[in-house]
């Protein structure tokens, strides 16, 4: 089963791109084909994957055009290390796409339509969403099978994530998503064990999520090396292979692998 994972948060700097990139690399190391789709006008994936800025037509904005010919602009990344990750880049042109979406008859369903009409063959498709809850993340919600919510252990980020849940429940119903995308879980990010508020938040979060039957994945530790790695356009695994923080994604990746390997619904066609 193809997992289409929307990485969504309602606050900037919560680690969406970091999570997307590292999950992609982890999965690639486990022989899964991954497509990273950048829905963010900031185009952070271009930076994190060490790619050149794309022509506007070579971004996801080109895919979302009505005249899209079905040839996805997918750029391989970390080619020296893996053949399993491709990126559909984002960029400023997506702000224009977002504006056009509002008037488009199938606005929220445009990405889902593209994936239906011109399916990607990858095991996992990751949508790296922008920080606001605008039309682009809404499109991701309508197109994904799962969402994952990275969150900083800080009030602003957690409050944003809580609002994100409200947004999620409202729009699943409003868009009549069937089946509704599943919430894979929260991923606490930039956890600094030395900071008592981080510790307290990390301790309190699982209980809150448990009430809602939402999984809390292990925290990703705070490290300056993430920033350094992204500057080089590499995941931490490649940038500092011995760095223990790279293992912080393991459990989340494993969970994804389980989902891919053991599809919930077995549809056999005659």
């Amino acid at each position: 089963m193809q997992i289409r994972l929307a990485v969504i948060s309602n606050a900037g700097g919560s680690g969406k791109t970091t999570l997307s990139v590292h999950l992609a690399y982890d999965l690639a190391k486990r022989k899964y084909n991954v497509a990273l789709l950048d829905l963010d006008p900031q185009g952070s994936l271009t930076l994190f994957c060490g790619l050149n800025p794309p022509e506007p037509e070579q971004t996801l904005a080109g895919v979302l055009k009505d005249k899209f010919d079905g040839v996805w602009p997918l750029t391989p990344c970390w080619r020296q290390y893996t053949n399993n990750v491709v990126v559909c880049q984002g960029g400023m042109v997506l702000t224009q796409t977002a504006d056009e979406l509002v008037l488009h008859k199938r606005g929220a369903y445009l990405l889902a339509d593209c994936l239906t009409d011109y399916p990607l063959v990858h095991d996992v498709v990751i949508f790296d969403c922008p920080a606001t809850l605008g039309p682009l993340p809404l499109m991701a919600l309508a197109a994904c099978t799962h969402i994952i919510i990275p969150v900083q252990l800080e009030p602003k980020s957690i409050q944003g994530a809580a609002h994100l849940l409200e947004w999620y429940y409202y729009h699943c119903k409003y868009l009549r998503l069937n089946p509704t995308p599943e919430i894979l879980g929260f991923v606490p990010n930039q956890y600094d064990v030395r900071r008592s508020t981080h510790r307290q938040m990390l301790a309190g979060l699982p209980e809150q999520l448990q009430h809602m039957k939402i999984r809390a994945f292990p925290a990703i530790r705070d490290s300056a090396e993430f920033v350094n790695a992204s500057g080089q356009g590499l995941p931490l695994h490649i940038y500092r292979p011995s760095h223990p923080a790279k293992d912080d994604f393991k459990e989340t990746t494993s969970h994804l692998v389980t989902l891919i390997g053991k599809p919930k619904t077995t549809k056999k066609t005659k």
Partner: protein
Amino acid sequence: MCARNTTNLTNYFSGAKQSQQLSEAEQEIQQLRAEIEELRDKNSGELERQLEELRTQLQSQIGILSIPIEQIEPNIEQPRQTFLTESLESMSRSLASDGQLQPVILIQRENHLLIFDGERRWRSAKALGWQTLEAVIIPEPTGLHRKALLTSLHREDLNPLDKAEAIARELSTIIGLELQDIPRILSTVIRRLNSQKRITSLVDLITADAKKQEQELESLDLSDSERAILSLLLDLQLNPASIDANIFPMLSLAEDLKLAIRAGLKGVHALALQKLSAKNLGLSEQKAKSIREETTHKVIVEKLSVVATRKLVAEVIASESKLAVTKNTKKKAVSQASNRLQQLSLELLKQANPAELTELQEVLRHKLIEIEKVLKQN
């Protein structure tokens, strides 16, 4: 600190939790709706089966069915709960001799066939050891008890006049007696048996079998026509005494009362009104008739009871006889005058003076003219 942070987190998530609960509730509703739809789909088969059954039932209603007696159940809601042994025995006799003349009416209630009409036939047939009864099955009427009650109360029996005529006709046809002789012959024999105090043994014969009836009638010392009439009445399960007392008197009712009966007047009322005869009223047949019709109309319009009718009849007779008395008084004045005139002998006239005689002559001449006038008018 920790507690406060936890509280903060709770606050952050309260809205999300509400949203989730709402969403779950809506999902549950959707699921239930889907289940209802599914159940509807499943039940449509069951519904189809029930409809088919109904259709079969409807088809069977067109005709008379032969239903095993064991499958038939009495309806405990029916008003009539008393079934006298004699009544059942006479029905049994009728069934045994003539078979079932009318199908019983059954209603289908779930798996039960309940008697809507015909419990006496069912009981009697059962007593006879019959296996089946002819029946029609109708759908259960709404308000069954009320309907059954109405059926009992408003069942349109033959009115007593029709009954009397039908019985007399039957007796006349079978026995060969003159129609008008039959009530008289019956009346005679009933009166005689009454005075002989043997009427009870006759009435007991209604439920007896034909052989016993024959033997008993033999012992009653009857004329041929009397015996033939009694035998036939018993065979029809009719009480000869009751026919004589209640039914045959209808035959001698005045024509206007017969018409009134056919229009709905009750037999007992007619018998009471019959007292308004020419003889009782001291009037001509024509005048008596018009008074009777007037009174009958009043009885019908005012829906008078039998007692009230009898009272009214008595009042009418009383007032008519008063009028007759007055008339008689007037009648007397004329005859008295006539008598007095007869008493005026020739001797008396000779003794009178001429002026007196002239006056009498004038009075008589005048009266004579009036008498002639009156006589001419009549």
